[in-house]
């Protein structure tokens, strides 16, 4: 992980690298429970949060992670409706370079936009969601939460339900979970199943009920019928009826099933009210874990030497400071 400049997706990561991030996240998760939840790991470094597509939740989570690590932050937000998106990206890259920024967090409506920046920048680039491609930190926080809840990933039966085609969360989940040995079953409208999706190493169930049957984890995807999926499904009402995860459907899963959702939820559509707030739901834990996972990612990427090489010996963990409560981190390889 430390050899990497960027985190663009879970497709590129090995199982070991994913585990390294999860282990680091666990340490940071403990930091978050302290009276002063702050460490100086990124002191002197500047992170830029570039959100070309609005996402309050993810942006706040990254900002919080940066602040908890004592980084300086700058935020850039745009409506994404500019005349030439390509030009914006190119100019953005130039500006970032000129400002001497160390880490860039980018959310963009075009798949691959972070890859463009990663190619053009010395700075490390973290994909905070690109188009319908990947959302690696969401994938990592989902996996982290599953591991926290179930104690392991290998052998878990995970059902992913909803609009897989447009879901970057689903892609990151599938890559990560399959690499760590989970059994992944997906279900959703046939019009929202991407071509040859089985090649992720997952199986496609014919119904939500079939997917949920015996599941350890049910991860419910957000549906955007009005926008992204217009024409692909008749109506929200029909969607809720056929694909909505209800308490009754959840009963097919393991008795202690873990229910997840990346948020924001359409209550009463893809997830029933009583499931969202029910005893199996860990949706709020996901949010907390998200900060810890992002801290781990920022921390690990910041360990890279500016030249792009990694000094193997130089992994000083969180620097020793006057506060002796600081945890000691050393990223494993």
């Amino acid at each position: 992980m430390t050899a990497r400049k960027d985190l663009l997706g879970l497709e590129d990561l090995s199982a070991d690298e994913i585990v390294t991030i999860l282990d680091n996240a666990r340490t940071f998760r403990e930091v978050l429970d302290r009276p002063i939840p702050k460490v100086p790991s990124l002191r002197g470094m500047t992170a830029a949060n570039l959100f070309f597509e609005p996402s309050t939740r993810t942006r706040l989570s990254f900002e919080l992670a940066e602040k908890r690590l004592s980084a300086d932050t700058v935020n850039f937000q745009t409506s994404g409706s500019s005349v030439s998106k390509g030009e914006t990206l190119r100019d953005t890259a130039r500006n970032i370079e000129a400002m001497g920024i160390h880490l860039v967090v980018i959310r963009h409506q075009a798949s691959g936009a972070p890859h463009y920046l990663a190619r053009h920048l010395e700075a490390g680039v973290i994909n905070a969601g690109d188009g319908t491609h990947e959302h690696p930190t969401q994938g990592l926080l989902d996996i982290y939460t599953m591991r926290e809840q179930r104690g392991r990933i290998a052998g878990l039966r995970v059902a992913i339900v909803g609009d897989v085609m447009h879901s970057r969360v689903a892609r990151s989940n599938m890559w990560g979970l399959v690499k760590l040995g989970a059994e992944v079953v997906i279900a959703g409208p046939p019009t929202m199943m991407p071509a040859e999706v089985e090649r992720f190493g997952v199986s496609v169930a014919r119904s939500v009920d079939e997917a949920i049957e015996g599941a350890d984890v049910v991860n419910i995807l957000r549906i955007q019928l009005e926008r992204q999926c217009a024409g692909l499904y008749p109506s929200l009402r029909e969607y809720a009826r056929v694909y909505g995860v209800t308490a009754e459907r959840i009963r097919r899963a393991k008795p202690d099933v873990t229910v997840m959702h990346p948020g924001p939820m359409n209550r009463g559509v893809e997830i029933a009210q009583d499931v969202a707030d029910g005893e199996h739901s860990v949706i709020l834990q996901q949010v907390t874990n998200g900060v810890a996972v992002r801290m781990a990612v920022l921390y690990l990427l910041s360990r890279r030497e500016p030249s792009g090489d990694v000094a193997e010996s130089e992994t000083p963990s969180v620097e020793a400071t006057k506060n002796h409560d600081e945890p000691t981190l050393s990223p494993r390889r």
Partner: protein
Amino acid sequence: MTNPLCLRGGRVLDPARGIDRVQDLWIEGGKIAGWGEDAPSALRSNPKAEIVDVRGAVVCPGLVDIHVHLREPGQEDRETIETGARAAVRGGFATVACMPNTDPPLDDRPRVEYVRRRGLEVGLARVLPIAAVTKGQQGMELTEIEDLVEAGAVAISDDGKPVRNAELMRRALELTRDLGIPVIQHAEDPDLKGVGVMHEGWVSTRMGLKGIPDIAESVIVARDVLLAELTGGHVHVAHVSAAKTVDLIRQARARGIRITGETAPHYLVLTDEAVEGYDTSAKMNPPLRSERDRDALIEAVQDGTLDCLATDHAPHTDIDKDGDFDSAPFGIVGLETALGVYLKALVEPGHLTLPGLIARMTVEPYRVLGRRGGTLEPGAEADVTVFDPSHRWTVRASEFASKGRNTPFEGWELPGRVLLTLVGGRTVFRAETSEATLR
């Protein structure tokens, strides 16, 4: 009048007449005067004749590209008739047929005449305009087809987009049936394409890019087969990319329906994997497809189902192509790499003989346009291409004559260096460092 010219000792290929022989080729007064001993003896003893030694090289009819975009009028920052024609002759093309999706489009007589005239003024490759099927390429109302053909249009097409309305396509085929020109169809169902940016398959799924299914192309071809059958008109399918399309064309031809097809170099050597890394130089329309499609296209070129080999030369500025994949325009340049890529894709692996390749780049495109040409028969216009098939070179987009640098072949080593291009007996291109080769 220029002096007579003799291309000495080359391998003269004239597939139209089944000629493949090492011999001299004589040119006089802009026309082919004869070959070897078949040339007039007065010519052979003419002391003023310029002799160019082309031993080891192939001498063939000037290459013809039935599908280019020259961007003039309107988008001269991408290409002009002059830069496009210069790129053409550098790539060995003596003739290019240019698509009407300029800005404004070639849908009236003055614009078609302008392109013809400008092509003549530039005086490099022959520039044959293709006129629009519908006014403004809006798909609503037919252009004045006969007037446009009189003005010099060699075909009609709404390339850039399909003729979506089946009724209009029917009428266009009826009106052109007896004019001897094809309706060139950019076969792509706009609804099935949607906002797709690459081939629909595992790679698009993995990369999270909106896919364009192969049937977006094939359903239009299926429809057009029926319309060609009904009308007796001639449909020519531009830039065929999919196996299913090839099957439809093959079956239709077996039933005697007038349908022809072309493909472009990139479909024969690349697949959707080339999009990896969100490389916008691999973004084209139709998109690069699967290995299976690629194999089917090669087979279709072999058996003649795809009559001719084009380039779909589509120049864009660097600025246009620089950015995220979704917002980059479709299209790549092709004039200066086509011969090399075709040699590499078809001749080197033995899918096609060299004369077979030359046929699909000379006489066949003329035949598709319903015209005579693409041959070295005595008396024909002396359009000649000379190239060294064994000379390998490295693609450097920065050296292109085209304004477009958008190529997926940057850095590729290709066979087939063009040494000389003649149009009407005039040397319009001569390789710079060829002094040793061309004496």
